[in-house]
């Protein structure tokens, strides 16, 4: 009987030792490559500069901006309320508190959008949630929000609405000291032409 107990004890110990040979437990919480690919397929990771501007203006508490550029760039200019996590340091455990926020949308941005997306890819693999990329980055921010282009007179009314929003947003981001004479957009009236009737003859 004693021999049996010893045998069982050895068996369990051997199994326990087998745990050491399990694959790296790190891999368990990392997002698998095929799951990242399926997230790449739906383009929901991108947010537009307009959306970001609107959420900053509305002081949306669920928006958290992360500037992934180098510190020098960040100190020179950054979006209001943005935190700075340079891409080189994204794996640093110091940033866990920034990256692990429940119910908060983390929006990465850089000058373009490559660095921001690379940060997105790495953070995604680390298993963080609610990650986004500002499409076009700050270059596009300046083209749309800070220096909006007046749409052509023939543009649709939604384009004019967007232009009006961007002008307002620019005023907000430049501290409101700006005076722009409002240019009235000429409204074009379209008249529909009457369809000319075609005389069709049958047999």
């Amino acid at each position, binding site marked *: 009987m004693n021999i049996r107990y010893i045998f069982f004890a050895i068996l369990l110990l051997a199994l326990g030792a087998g745990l050491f040979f399990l694959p790296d437990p790190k*891999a368990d919480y990392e997002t698998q*490559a095929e799951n990242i*690919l399926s997230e790449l397929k739906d383009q929901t990771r991108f947010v537009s500069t307009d959306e970001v501007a609107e959420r900053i203006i509305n002081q949306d508490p669920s928006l958290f901006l992360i500037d992934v550029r180098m510190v020098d760039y960040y100190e020179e200019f950054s979006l209001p309320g943005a935190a700075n996590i340079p*891409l080189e340091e994204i794996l640093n455990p110091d940033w866990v508190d920034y990256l692990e926020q429940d119910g908060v949308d983390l929006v990465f941005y850089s000058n373009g959008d490559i660095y921001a*997306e*690379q940060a997105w890819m790495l953070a995604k693999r680390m298993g963080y949630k609610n990650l986004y990329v500002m499409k076009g980055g700050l270059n596009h921010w300046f083209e749309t929000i800070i220096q909006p282009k007046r749409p052509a007179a*023939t543009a649709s009314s939604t384009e004019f609405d967007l232009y009006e929003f961007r002008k307002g947003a620019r005023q907000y981001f*430049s501290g409101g000291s700006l005076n722009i004479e409002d240019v009235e957009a000429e409204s074009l009236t379209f008249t529909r032409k009457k369809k000319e009737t075609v005389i069709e*003859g049958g047999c």
Partner: protein
Amino acid sequence: MKDTNLKTNRLSIAVLIFVSLLVIGFITMSKPEFEYKLTLEQSLEQILSLEDEMNPDELMEIIDSETKGYKVVDIRNPYEFVKGNIQGSKNIPYQNLFAKENIEFFDQMKKDSVTVVLCGYDQLEANGSWMLLQQLGYSNVKVLQGGYGYYSGETFDMFSESEIPQYFVEEPKYSFVEIMDKLTSGSIIEDEKVEYESIIPTRKKKETVIEGGC
């Protein structure tokens, strides 16, 4: 004596069940289909080195001189691919990147040590696929800066005065500080003053066709 025998028998059955459960657990443990070959740190290092980003001018030279050992893989959808593509490129829409035949293709390329150049419409489109392939150990995969759009000239801005090549999207295109200073001091941006001519579209008259019978 009989009693103790029964006890030990029960015990051995229990242990056997326990052990077999463990064994089943080990066997059915979910194994990832695609295993990362690069750790996060290695992956970050690989991105930052910029070594695996292909310059469009370099690619043009490679294609012009028909240098062996390079293969362009276009990851856009087949519709975009048919409309125009880089000479000699193969179309693998990134949605099917991990399909069996495509993984076999990348394995073959790696075996033959052919450099694969991934190309999307812009660099951003191919970035994710490139990073995934790199992380899975396909170290021969590069990404095309500027993408097909720049390569074909579609997104190339001829009037740009910047000296920085346009495929470096991470370079600031404007002096952000200068623009913001101008704005806060209240000066009007020139762009605002430009008067746009209004264009009134004129529709062409449809010619009427008199259709007759017989």
